[in-house]
């Protein structure tokens, strides 16, 4: 009985997420608002079914009542978010809303399967963040002056990064965290947002040479501070954000090309300078030859993905706990192992559809400041997705970045929820602006 349920659910989940993913892209073509709305509602149903069936398997497999409790709480959370946004922010983008909840659903499922304790922590942070970020669209609707404070933003950002550099202790060669009253903060996650607003503020005022240099200097300071903290993954993300924002502001391919060249030189230099970068590249080129040390993580990740295959082993049927740091950096491998590579690929496509929607919204903004902010957030999100999934599948070397909204980690989930809320807020207030002009 147990196994039959697990097996049946495995295939039903794949079917549901495939339909959901196709709908994510179908709505881009759907002009008719009513029809689009009915697709969004069907997506909500699929989301709830995936949520329910997964926890059914977890409960039947473990006979542990705590999964029922967790299911109830997490299901109420995602459903309330959908209802809240639909009622309070009527103009909110429903695809982003659905996707945000879908990704959270997957996070709740896989984390409670991997570690009930961590899943509890994750959902507490998620609920708190959802409550706080639900006010962001309101703030953005009524407050149009943020662009003026970019010097303040960059000041705070640089200060936070300096704090990390001075006060933090290195973990695995990188300084990432600051401990405040027992709570671990990873400032670089938050500084990303400040950085996007700073660069958008500078470049939307004017894209003359002087301003470009100012933006370059500020970006340089951020990146150098991150490199000094040996947080090279974040340095890479900041670099990417700046490069794309500069390109959007100027439309000059030259910046991308020269930026990429500089980036290549920087990458080669960091390879020479930092031992932990060399270790990761070695692990990337030959994980199985170095399986005893450097290659261990990536080899275990590949075992998980390869073992799962397209259809997965089924929830509770695999051995994802063999992968180190599976709840954060390697959560994608755990999903692939138990829920299948098809499910995992759908997840990637859902992330891509979020990104396309972010960019789509940016294009619609009339105000260049919001355009830049939108594009900056979009790239931050998708580049992080790329680094983590590319890393754990051995497509690129590992960078130690988490999968937004899915990986365990309070800072990561908080910041990603803020990003989604900002986009929603801008999306809602942009609509308002155009109405007023009419």
């Amino acid at each position, binding site marked *: 009985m147990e196994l039959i349920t697990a097996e049946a659910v495995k295939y039903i989940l794949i079917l549901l997420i495939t339909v959901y993913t196709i709908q994510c892209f179908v709505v881009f073509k759907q002009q008719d608002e009513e029809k689009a709305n009915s697709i969004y509602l069907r997506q909500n149903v699929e989301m709830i079914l995936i949520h329910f069936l997964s926890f059914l398997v977890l409960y039947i497999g473990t006979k542990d009542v705590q999964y029922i409790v967790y299911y109830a709480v997490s299901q109420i959370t995602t459903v309330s978010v959908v209802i809240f946004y639909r009622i309070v922010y009527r103009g909110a983008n429903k695809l982003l809303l659905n996707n945000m909840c879908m990704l959270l659903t997957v996070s709740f499922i896989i984390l409670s399967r991997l570690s009930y304790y961590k899943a509890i922590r994750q959902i507490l942070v998620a609920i708190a963040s959802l409550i706080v970020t639900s006010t962001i669209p309101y703030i953005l609707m009524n407050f149009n002056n943020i662009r003026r404070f970019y010097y303040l933003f960059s000041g705070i950002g640089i200060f936070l990064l300096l704090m990390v550099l001075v006060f933090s202790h290195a973990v695995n060669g990188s300084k990432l965290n600051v401990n405040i009253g027992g709570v671990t903060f990873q400032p670089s996650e938050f500084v990303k947002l400040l950085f996007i607003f700073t660069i958008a503020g500078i470049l939307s005022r004017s894209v003359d040479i002087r301003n470009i240099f100012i933006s370059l200097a500020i970006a340089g300071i951020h990146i150098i501070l991150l490199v000094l903290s040996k947080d090279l993954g974040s340095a890479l993300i900041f670099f990417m954000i700046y490069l794309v924002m500069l390109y959007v502001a100027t439309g000059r391919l030259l910046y991308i090309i020269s930026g990429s060249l500089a980036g290549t030189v920087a990458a080669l230099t960091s390879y020479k300078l930092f031992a932990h970068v060399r270790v990761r590249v070695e692990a990337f080129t030959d994980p199985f030859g170095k399986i005893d040390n450097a290659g261990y993580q990536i080899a275990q990740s590949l075992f998980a993905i*390869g073992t799962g295959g*397209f259809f997965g082993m089924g929830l509770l049927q695999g051995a994802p706990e063999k992968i180190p740091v599976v709840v954060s950096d390697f959560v994608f491998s755990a999903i692939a192992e138990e829920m299948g*590579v098809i499910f995992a690929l759908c997840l990637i496509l859902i992330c891509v559809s979020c990104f396309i929607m972010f960019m789509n919204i940016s294009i619609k903004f009339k105000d260049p400041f919001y*355009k830049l902010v939108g594009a900056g957030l979009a790239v931050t999100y998708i580049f992080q997705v790329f680094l983590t999934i590319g890393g754990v*599948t051995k497509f690129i070397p590992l960078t130690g970045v988490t999968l937004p909204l899915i990986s365990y980690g309070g800072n990561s989930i908080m910041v990603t929820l803020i990003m989604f809320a900002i986009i929603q807020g801008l999306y809602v207030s942009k609509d308002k602006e155009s109405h007023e002009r009419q």
Partner: protein
Amino acid sequence: MKDNRRENSKTGTEPVKIDKKRANRSIAYVTYAFVLLFLVLIVYIVYYTIFRGPEDINNSYNSRQDIYAKRVVRGQILSRNGDILAKSVTDESGREEREYPYGPLFAHAVGFSEKGKLGVEANANIRLLTSNRPLTERVINDFRGEKNLGNDVYTTLDPDIQRAAYDALGSYKGAVIATDIKTGEILCMVSKPDFDPNLIEEEWDEINSDQKKGALLNRVTQGLYPPGSTFKIVTTLEYLKEHEDIASEYSFECNGSFSYEGSKINCYHDRSHGEVDLLSSFSRSCNASYANISTTLDKEAFRNTCEELLFNKDLPLKMSYKQSYVPINNDSSADELMQTAIGQGKTQMTPIHINIITSAIANNGVLMRPYIIDRIEKNGGGVIRQYAPDEYGRIIDEKYCLSLREMMEEVVKSGTGTRLSETDGYTAAGKTGSAEYSSNKVMSHAWFTGYAPCDDPQIAVTVIAEEAGSGGEMAVPIAKKVFDAWAASVVE
């Protein structure tokens, strides 16, 4: 208009506003670029799942094997002709057991899968526990809670040659390996003492407790022995490399021993060989002459040659093995160099390694990676993966191979290997060795490594019989039986 603005900005009078159309175009391009990047990533993951994943997970570090065993009936292991070497049978109570129809014959080559794993059972573990039966059937079986039938592994092993080698080695401890020179296929792999894999669970304590017996050790790949005179192949190669021009004029007066800088090297049983040249030093295996040769060699170059032949290095094998060891370096004493030149001293070598070198020489310097798994088929037929012969590369110059082959032929014609000169329809060549393994100089391990036929080498055979005596008397006849079995199978 745009250009005007830009010029204005240089004078610093008016801010340059972002051109929205341009910005939108850039946003679109960035979007396309990332979407493209993700498409590549997705194609890669699909490719990985289909082609690379099944390879990668077949790794002893992958501890997910128990999960597989719960869902799949372990597949069969077969010989190159399709004879079943291992299969799974389910008894009435539903208990799955492994059966080895040939008993101890393939004990180390095929190995076992309970109480740990060895041989092909270990190397192809996940393959055997993966089912490629039709998807619908597998889904139905999953639902019914029934096991799927695992894939079958076809080896390169030849039961006739294996049997001949096994019987010929008799009650000696030791090892026999035969490989196909052109492809690197392992045709037979015998190690003794052995055990019956059918009784591995029952006799586990006995096999394991008896440390001295070492039955679980596959001596072909993991037995380290002094190579004795078979190592003269390597010494000769180094001499040819350094003194090619004068090699034909080499001569030495052997009176049964050679002394240099206070060290003395004796010929086998102190026999004196009289006047020898390079060819007869090799074919008659004159230790004194080789000790003399060693004094002319450059230590650094000698070490390099050894490393090119994969001493102190990893071998191109996909199974567990031990590295061979040569002690030569710049600080080596004359005594060490002389000992090494005749394959004594600290030099240690596995039988498969000397077989690899023999194959490469017979293949004019090009080494084919030895392999034992030919293909994976799904249950009921249909090739999942075919392993093709794989060239490792050239490890010896062709011209030296020709000289070495001439010398190895002479060993059989007139030297220490004449017990191989009268054969049925083929010619053979090789090198014998009688390796002293302790201070007791009376007893020695009997070595032979060689190939056949001489004009177009097909098979390389390496034999070591521990504590058996001289290579020429004891190891050569064992090799001959292996060559005979091979020749008989070729005629068929």
